[in-house]
């Protein structure tokens, strides 16, 4: 599978070959950071820059657990701007629309390189216009953990929002006014960055639980406010009422039942989108009807999944990030709701990796091609609108990967001859469920055999493409400039696709 001209790949990178290629290599681990003897408490971002002597060209990392409610990233950007630092490399686990200040820093050459897992909003537009001097590298959630522990992503200073910190410098995400729940994406940064800083607005005598142990922490910065926890709510955390989305969800649940995945001990992951939550709802009804108890649900956790835990439908939740405040409350109080690091969640080399234990995962797509390659990185115009997050990780790990999507979105087909950007390789994508039919990857003969005689509307993916073209016509293929602005890095470190400047 090669979606780009290998000649365009910068010399220090290797092209993607197969999703299982990582098995042929050993895990690479750089030494964990030196344990700190003392934690220094500071009172401003300015003091932090002065004390740590943050200078041109350094790599600063961040987590995105406060999502659109995060204040810390922007405060650090303002300090970079004030000091007019140059050629900075930023490595936040995600960038959101509220991080708009970064656009100006990119245009001014303060920030020249970014490594992240997810990116949308004004910063994505700035990079897409080719205004960043260096490269954007887009990792998966598990891939970022791998990149950090292997030294592919070297972090000078990890600046980690910590909603609560104790007097020793331990931190967690479950206490304080800005509680955001799991801090799963921060753990690799904590262990492998040269220097670690916790930024908090709440220092208390002792913590209910330690997520960020002080032995890894060098500095604590106490601010008045690190964020607005209401902003952590993900894009959509309500079950869709759209009849198309509900039909897709209903058929997905029926499909899972016919494939015999609704059974005792089952494990699952769904996203936080309206249709994914509707799938969870229909799966829940089937579990209740059959008196099923699953082993675990994982990933980003919403209140709907918390309800399933509380109703006894799962033994445990493994939570890498909380998508809403109900999930935050649950992870704080329910011992069966467990935080997990991004490495345990999805790092291909982590011996405990959770994604490999998943029975099924429900994922979305902005585009899917007739070889089942999925794009969740760019839209139909080539604009960057997201990124893998855990998409490729869970698609590889789960026994069955199901993409749920309306066939037509804004009068455009999601099924293409060829996707604009490959985020997740088709070899790991098993089934596409749309309102106009369900396409099973023909390579999954075991699934097709199980579904023989099914009354579900099974169709070849080519038929879905043909149907969508009959209804909406064939869109003109978008043209992008030849300039490579970024790399889509697969979880094993190979490059699965390139990102180009918009025309």
């Amino acid at each position, binding site marked *: 599978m090669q979606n780009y001209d290998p000649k365009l790949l910068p010399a220090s990178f290797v092209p993607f070959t197969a999703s299982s290629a990582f098995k042929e290599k050993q895990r690479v681990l750089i030494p964990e950071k030196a344990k700190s003897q003392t934690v220094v408490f500071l009172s401003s971002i300015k003091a932090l820059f002065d004390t740590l002597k943050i200078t041109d060209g350094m790599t600063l990392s961040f987590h995105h657990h406060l999502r659109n409610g995060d204040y810390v990233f922007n405060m650090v950007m303002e300090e970079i701007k004030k000091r007019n630092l140059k050629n900075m490399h930023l490595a936040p686990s995600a960038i959101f629309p509220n991080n708009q200040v970064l656009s100006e820093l990119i245009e001014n050459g303060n920030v020249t390189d970014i490594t992240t897992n997810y990116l949308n909003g004004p910063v994505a537009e700035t990079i897409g216009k080719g205004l960043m001097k260096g490269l954007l590298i887009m990792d998966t959630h598990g891939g970022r953990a791998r990149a950090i522990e292997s030294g592919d992503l070297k972090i000078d200073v990890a600046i980690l929002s910590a909603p609560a910190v104790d007097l020793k410098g331990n931190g967690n995400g479950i206490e304080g006014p800005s509680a955001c729940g799991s801090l799963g994406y921060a753990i690799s940064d904590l262990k492998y960055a040269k220097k670690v800083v916790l930024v908090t607005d709440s220092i208390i005598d002792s913590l209910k639980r330690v997520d960020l142990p002080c032995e890894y922490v060098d500095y604590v910065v106490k601010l008045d406010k690190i964020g607005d926890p209401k902003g952590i709510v993900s894009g959509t955390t309500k079950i869709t009422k759209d*009849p198309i989305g509900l039909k897709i969800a209903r058929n997905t649940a029926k499909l899972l039942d016919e494939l015999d995945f609704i059974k005792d001990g089952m494990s699952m992951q769904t996203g936080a989108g309206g249709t994914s939550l509707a799938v969870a709802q229909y799966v829940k009804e089937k579990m209740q009807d059959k008196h099923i108890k699953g082993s675990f649900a994982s990933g980003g956790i919403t209140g709907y999944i918390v309800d399933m835990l509380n109703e006894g439908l799962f033994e445990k939740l493994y939570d890498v990030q909380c998508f809403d405040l109900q999930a935050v409350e649950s992870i704080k109080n329910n011992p069966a709701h467990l935080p997990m690091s991004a490495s345990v969640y999805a790092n291909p080399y982590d011996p405990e990796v959770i994604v490999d234990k998943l029975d099924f995962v429900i994922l979305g797509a902005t585009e899917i091609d007739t070889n089942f390659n999925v794009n969740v990185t760019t839209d139909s115009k080539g604009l960057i609108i997201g990124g893998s997050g855990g998409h490729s990780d869970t698609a590889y790990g789960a026994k069955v990967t199901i993409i749920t999507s309306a066939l037509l979105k804004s009068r455009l087909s999601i099924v293409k001859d060829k996707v604009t950007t490959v985020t997740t390789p088709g070899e790991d994508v098993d089934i596409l469920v749309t309102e106009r039919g369900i396409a099973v990857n023909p390579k999954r003969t075991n699934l097709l055999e199980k579904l023989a005689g099914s009354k579900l509307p099974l169709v070849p993916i080519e038929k879905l493409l043909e149907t969508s073209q009959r209804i909406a016509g064939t869109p003109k293929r978008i043209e992008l400039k030849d300039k490579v602005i970024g790399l889509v890095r697969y979880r094993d470190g190979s490059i699965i696709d390139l990102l180009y400047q918009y025309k």
Partner: protein
Amino acid sequence: MLQNADCFESDAVIIDLEDAVHVNEKDNARNLVHYYLESLTDVPMEIVIRINAPDTPYYEDDLKAVVSDKIDAVMLPKAGPRSCFLIDQVLTIIENEKKMQKKIGIVPIIETTMGVMQMEEIAKMPRVSGILLGAEDLSVDMEVERTKTGTEIWYPRAKLAYTCKAYKIDAIDTPFTDTTDYAGLKEDALKAKALGLNAKAAIHPNQIDIINQVFSPSEKQIIWAKRVLKATEEAQAKNLGVFSLDGKMVDKPIIDRAQKIIKMAQKYHLE
């Protein structure tokens, strides 16, 4: 909405040119529906167009714009025998002019007290393939409060069920207008089914699944029907006219009922 009309598992889709369309938008709506119908291929359900009533200046243009082999029936608001007769005449002219292959059906809506009283005359009309009860307007005409319990429409529902059964056409229940009350919808549909109606109109696609569940044969009924038909075959092989199953006598009406259940199960891919 139109683009996805064929995505849902209803037996028919009703495209409305009447109350859902503002008087200033009638032409646009007709054009939209016309071009939509032209683009249709392989639609898995019947297409019914609700036209404006014959006492309005719109119905003839509606019929000219939408009647073609792509549709199956027109739905007629505030229907009576005279309006059904009039529409039958106009349809005949259009079918001849357009040299159509199909004979378009009429689904009258009973939504006046006079319509209830004239139900049998309406059901007799040759093109009438089913009758829909329109309980909202009917309750206004009857000057009774429309309630979720549906006590006020017990009589017209029962009359519709008997009339349609007698003339072998579909008895279509009035829609349940609260689009978020799924438990209420199910209860309402069960009441209609218990009276003998065999279909129900939905006003939101999210209602279709529940209506299908209520009006489709249950797994238990299908198993029973299969056993009856198997026992019938065995009895016929032994030249028995009447026989028993589980201690109960099985005769022609029971066999007919079992056959109907299996036919419906096959229609809905349940068998």
